[in-house]
């Protein structure tokens, strides 16, 4: 009997996409911090986390439809719509703020749910459905905020875009952030904690449910999933609904970060396109069936960390897009390297 392969090695082989995304991100990020005059300090980490979180959320939103073999072109628009909604609602008494946050997330979920229903019962391709509904979302956003403006609670805004110690100080928790046990974690950016919580409390449990597994099954072979009696329709609707929730969280954070709402169409499109790039960088197959939202988070971080480095190194300003594109192309090509290992070329067509 041959020696069994170690468990962690099997897991690594199953997740090469995720592993290489993490490695690439860490390499770039280490580089950035080493050359940054204030590298490895809390302000730098806080700034980086704030900048990346909205894109990370939208990338997670994109992942779920992609796992199912579809594309969601409305994620950036839903983010923008919720951004505008939040600039009206997330202000006032603590109760009003809580109500506003719940309403914002519910709005995203409802929008995603509608997307799912159109795809399932209207039998329209996700890419076309979401192209249309995305335009509707921008329309609603423009209705809510014809011109940029609005306000979000200042304390909330300050607390969530800084380190945990500022968070505790703002809300008078843990002796104003001075408690001894709190110090080892006080430097962590609140935004990062939020992102990890979203992954742990929403994505991880969801993936383990029957619906979550069905999404992967639909992505690999929809016919087989249906014949096996999996709840295909319900899974599709759930997938778009959850996508809406993640997009809403992105929009909510953007509102908290900017303390305003802006129905910015070019920005919405930029987020949608970047979310697709993040999904691919994170090792999720555009054909569906394999990958994870965690990978997409790292994909988003890679997109961000490349531009972080532009602020440290001297790259001609009009060459920056070209350099970014080349790096992304190289990163995506790494994923294609497995082609070289294939023993039978027919495997490529599977």
């Amino acid at each position, binding site marked *: 009997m041959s020696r069994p392969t170690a468990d962690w090695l099997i897991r690594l082989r199953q997740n090469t996409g995720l592993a290489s995304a993490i490695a690439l991100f860490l390499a770039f990020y280490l580089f950035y911090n080493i050359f940054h005059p*204030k590298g490895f300090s809390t302000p730098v980490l806080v700034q980086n986390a704030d*900048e990346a979180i909205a894109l990370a959320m939208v990338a997670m939103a994109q992942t779920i439809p992609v796992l199912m073999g579809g594309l969601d072109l409305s994620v950036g628009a839903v983010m923008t719509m919720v951004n505008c909604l939040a600039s009206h609602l997330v202000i006032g008494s603590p109760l009003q703020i809580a109500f506003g946050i719940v309403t914002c997330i519910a709005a995203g979920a409802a929008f995603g749910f509608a997307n799912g229903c159109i795809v399932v019962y209207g039998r329209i391709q996700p890419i076309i459905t979401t192209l249309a509904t995305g335009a509707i979302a921008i329309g609603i956003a423009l209705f809510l905020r014809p011109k940029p403006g609005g306000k979000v609670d200042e304390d909330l805004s300050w607390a969530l875009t800084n380190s945990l110690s500022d968070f505790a100080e703002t809300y008078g928790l843990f002796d104003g952030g001075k408690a001894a046990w709190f110090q080892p974690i006080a430097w962590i950016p609140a935004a990062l904690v939020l992102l990890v919580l979203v992954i742990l409390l929403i994505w991880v449990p969801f993936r383990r449910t029957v619906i979550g597994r069905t999404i992967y099954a639909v992505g690999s072979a929809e016919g087989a999933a249906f014949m096996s009696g999996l709840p295909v329709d319900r899974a599709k609707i759930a997938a778009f609904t959850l996508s809406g929730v993640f997009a809403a969280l992105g929009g909510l954070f953007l509102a908290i970060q900017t303390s305003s709402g802006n129905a910015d169409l070019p920005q919405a499109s930029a987020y949608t396109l970047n979310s697709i790039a993040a999904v691919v960088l994170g090792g999720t197959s555009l054909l569906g069936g394999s990958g994870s939202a965690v990978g997409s988070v790292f994909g988003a971080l890679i997109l961000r960390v490349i531009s972080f480095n532009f602020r440290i190194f001297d790259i001609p300003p009009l060459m920056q897009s070209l350099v970014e594109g080349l790096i992304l192309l190289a990163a995506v090509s790494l994923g294609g390297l497995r082609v070289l290992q294939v023993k039978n070329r027919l495997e490529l067509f599977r």
Partner: protein
Amino acid sequence: MHASRIAGVAFAGLLLSSVAVLAGPKTVSGPGADPQCFKPWNEKTKYLQWDKKPGPYRIAVVNGFVGNTWRIQMIKTAKAYAEQPGVKEKIKEFKVISTGTDVAAQLGAMEDFINQGYDAIVTIAVSPEGFDRVIRLADKNNVVVVPFDNVLDTDKVMMVNEDQLEMGKIYGRWLREQLGDKKSGKILEVRGLPGNSVDRDRHIGFQEVMKNGANFEIIEVVGNWDDGTAQKVTADAIAAHGKFDGIIVQGGSTGVTRAMQDAKHPWVPIAGESENGFRKLLAQYGKDGLKGLSVGQSPGLVAIATKAALSALEGNPMPQLISVPIPQARYDEMKDGANYWSNLTDNFFTVNEFKPCNVNITATEIMAKDEKNTTN
């Protein structure tokens, strides 16, 4: 109970001390430095003063969208200006980046430069709102933030722009002057990007002058400040309406003039932007009746914004909102090599001289810059 009260007092003390730490500019009374150049927007404009910092300084330009000729020329101009004698000595490091149309990325980049210890950040804001946090951090770290062109809806930072409403009025006044006693007739107005404050303000200013004691029929079309679009909509308008008595165009002026030429529309008075191609046509056909005025939102505003940042870092009182004089040239003032260049492309923006500011970035200086990110 007692302990909590003491804690409360201590907390209040902490708050007070943190207020004292918060630096940022003081509001002072005018006049400011170099009032010819740094002209206050109006008589209500307040003055800001930062603590004097020893030079030379580190300055970052955080651009948003890049991809039209105006923005590219702006970046080239920024670099050319930073290289000029008298400016170069004051700048230790000059960095230019573009973040795209993503407010999170622009805010992030600005905060990063604050963290890196830069002294001033010059920016074209992606959105007029959302910069509260960055402004707060900049004040805390004594960093001068100077938005220009697309400015912010705030009075907490120093900003630089041209008066767009006045620019619209200049268009209107030129047409009225050229049309003389005429009080009626068809006028074509080629507008810019819809929903943009610049488009709105120029439109309001123009309409105000045209409607003053006259009865013109003004046909509005949308040209998106782009030669191709402007040329197409002008051609359509000429086909639909026949003859116009005057034309104004906010941007894409070369395209509009070419559309007139193609449709064999007689030359009529026109007011437009400062593209090189438009000025070439004015120089060529001005004597035949293309009586044009070329008024410009200059990419050179970046140089004025940088100059203002340097002045603020030197501890001078500065107007919170700086109105840059609007550069203009008439068809009979066109001079090759001075205010237009027959050897340069049509989409080069010609106005780069600001006499009151003693700033002139010549075309050759701008074009010589190969967009390299210089660090000196």
